[in-house]
């Protein structure tokens, strides 16, 4: 029971991270293409300035929760994915620094460099995150002791000895890139007006078409690479509501964007990310990290779970703490609601 609860609590943290940091990553990718003037760039950056750091906290809090609830999974996955994780860390550092520091530098060339760095780091991060999820879904060559070490690539085939990147995980990376870029575009439609907002709205359509196609491809590829993914769904057919939710929320994005209801369209995009991730989690459950070396080596829920007292106590503070955290998030977003480019410049 504790295992079931903590599995989904960690999933909630991951969904929270993707939904929240997702739009500022997407804005990071988009601003390279969408923004024409310095004023627009300021508005774009201003739309994420007060919140990006808080959004990234979900990653840290999620990592901490994973460490404490499933120590074996945390230890095995973080050391096994050593190289890509280190690259993710470097990208997170470069991205955070370039975003914050552009406000402190008034030399055009340096700003352009920082903006380019910010966009590039954002794009690469989305790809890495998507590929990471795909790696977990595909499985890794776990040894009997519960550890593994993956090179960045081998022969680009998912098999017994895959790399971080193969054709399947590259698809995962592309899905994440497009989904989060779309997510960011919808955020910009809410937060900006005039020309910029119109351009953001315009780019939603091609991104949506691309995402719809990639979603179908990635779901089919997942079933092809790991047919067991469907077991839980057939055992509990009611859970096909999750893939149905993917389709419905994706349709919602299209319709509501057309109808000029940007907030609802953005919420549909949140729902899309939620259903995609929840669907992936459910496809895995109760496995946490499948082994390509035979299911006997899988890291399962029961194998990775922390001790009973730890988890029981954790549940108490986790609920208290996250309730407070959600309170701050709501408070901050409500203080900064409204369009950013209509406001006077700060002195």
């Amino acid at each position: 029971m504790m295992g079931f609860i903590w599995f989904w609590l960690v999933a909630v943290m991951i969904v929270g991270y993707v939904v929240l940091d997702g739009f500022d990553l997407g804005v990071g990718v988009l601003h390279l293409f969408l923004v024409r003037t310095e004023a627009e760039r300021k508005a774009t950056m201003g739309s994420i300035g007060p919140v990006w750091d808080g959004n990234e906290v979900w990653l840290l809090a999620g990592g901490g929760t994973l460490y404490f609830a499933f120590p074996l999974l945390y230890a095995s996955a973080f050391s096994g994915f050593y190289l890509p994780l280190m690259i993710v860390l470097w990208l997170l550092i470069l991205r955070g620094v370039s975003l914050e520091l552009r406000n402190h530098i008034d030399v055009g060339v340096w700003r352009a460099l920082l903006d380019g760095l910010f966009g590039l780091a954002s794009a690469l991060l989305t790809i890495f995150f998507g590929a990471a999820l795909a790696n977990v879904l595909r499985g890794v060559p776990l040894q009997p002791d519960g550890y593994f070490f993956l090179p960045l690539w081998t022969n680009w085939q998912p098999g017994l000895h895959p790399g971080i990147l193969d054709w399947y995980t590259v698809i995962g990376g592309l899905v994440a890139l497009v989904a989060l870029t779309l997510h960011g575009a919808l955020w910009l439609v809410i937060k900006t007006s005039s020309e910029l907002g119109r351009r953001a709205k315009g780019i939603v359509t091609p991104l949506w078409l691309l995402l719809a196609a990639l979603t179908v491809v990635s779901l089919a590829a997942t079933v092809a690479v790991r047919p067991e993914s469907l077991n839980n769904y057939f055992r509990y057919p009611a859970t096909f509501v999750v893939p149905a939710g993917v389709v419905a929320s994706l349709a919602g994005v299209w319709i509501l964007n057309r109808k000029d209801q940007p907030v609802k369209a953005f919420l549909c995009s949140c729902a899309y990310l939620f259903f995609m991730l929840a669907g992936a989690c459910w496809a895995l459950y109760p496995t946490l990290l499948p082994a390509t070396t035979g299911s006997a080596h899988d890291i399962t829920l029961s194998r990775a779970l922390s001790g009973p007292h730890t988890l029981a106590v954790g549940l108490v503070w986790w609920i208290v703490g996250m309730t407070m955290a959600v309170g701050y998030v709501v408070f901050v977003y409500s203080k900064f609601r409204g369009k950013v480019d209509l406001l006077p410049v700060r002195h």
Partner: protein
Amino acid sequence: MSSELIHRLHFAFTITFHYLFPQLTMGLGLLIVVLKSVALRSGSEQWDRAARFWGRIFAINFVFGVVTGIPMEFEFGTNWARFAQLSGGVIGQPLAMEGVFSFFLESAFLGLFLYGERRISKLMHWFSAVMVFFGSWISGFFIIVTDAWMQHPVAFDRLPNGQFEVLSFWQLLLNPWALLQYAHNMTGAVVTGTFVMAAVGAFYLLDGRNVDYARIFLKVGVIVGVIASILIIFPTGDLHGKYVARHQPAAMAGMEGVFKTETGAGMVLMGQPNEETGEIDNPIVVNKVLSFLIYGTTKAEVQGLDKTPPDQRPTALPLLFYAYHIMAGLGTWFVLLMVVAAFLLWRGWLYKTRWVLWALLLSFPLPYIANTAGWMTAELGRQPWLIYGLMRTSEGYSANVSAGNGLFTLLGFMGLYALLGLLFTVLIYREIDRGPEPQVPVGAVNAG
């Protein structure tokens, strides 16, 4: 180089660089609350501007702290997987709590403090400053709890699979080691904050600009600084040292350079520990002081390294000895300088006494060195243990991450952090050069 050494250096390097930033964040957090409180009570625009100026410094510093902090949470898994696997049930707890209880609070209110001054009332803005301070200090607490459990494990049990399990949540959080270390460490952070603030004040006065603000910075820096400099030695350092002597006698022997157990042990002020001969070369010793400092009587016996089996003695003995002596020596300098400065401030002479202003200006790097040396003392003293008495450092690193891969990412971090250090210096210099007087904003983001 062995994998173990590389993984140790990896963590040591990234944590040492990281902690340059939070110590100022935590120290300044408190000082900004002081500035904002005076501004709120007196309605003085000048104190508000002073707070805004330090808010900008704080913000830059905070970003560097955040981005260099993310790797720390990951490195338990990436570089210390076998340790993480066994300890997650215990220290995963405070680490996760730091995220849940502190980071959300801190990031939310920092956004409000920096971007929201025009959208919220004066009282609410003051409250944001308090919450940012509060958040950063909670964060520090959970990290200290984590470290304290590795130094002095309490309230645990072992599961059949070897994992450590918490028996009492409150005993974990209220570990006496953690409380003492927290008091000592946070005072150290305040020392850093006050020395930086006083140094900027001294710089402006010596340079003859922003004179009114310089006086505010010196006043706040020196008054809080003299209190913190004294507190860091007595009682926090004193109590913490006595606790270390009781529970990690080998660490204390290494710190003080006591090779042979003796009654009425003297304190080595300077010297070089020689591991081969088991003596201190070229020592300057004050007789019987060490026994008195630890046990309150000059006749007490102080346990030397000879009582500890060779394979359980601190592995980097000279480094431990030097780190501790550097910390203690600098701590003494902080008290001297701050007491003199506080006396001059009280008499109204400080702003004209140029040599003291110079001393304050030049002393700002020293608390960084002292804090770093203090942490080195704590962590080197714990060796060869990762969890004191329970798990060796050699049993904890990621065996599946090869030495070459570890070295590659360590060098990568070194390069990246060199760049960050350079950027940070430039940015802080620019802020100080701009000063607290409002100007046309350089690229101040629009209020969104």
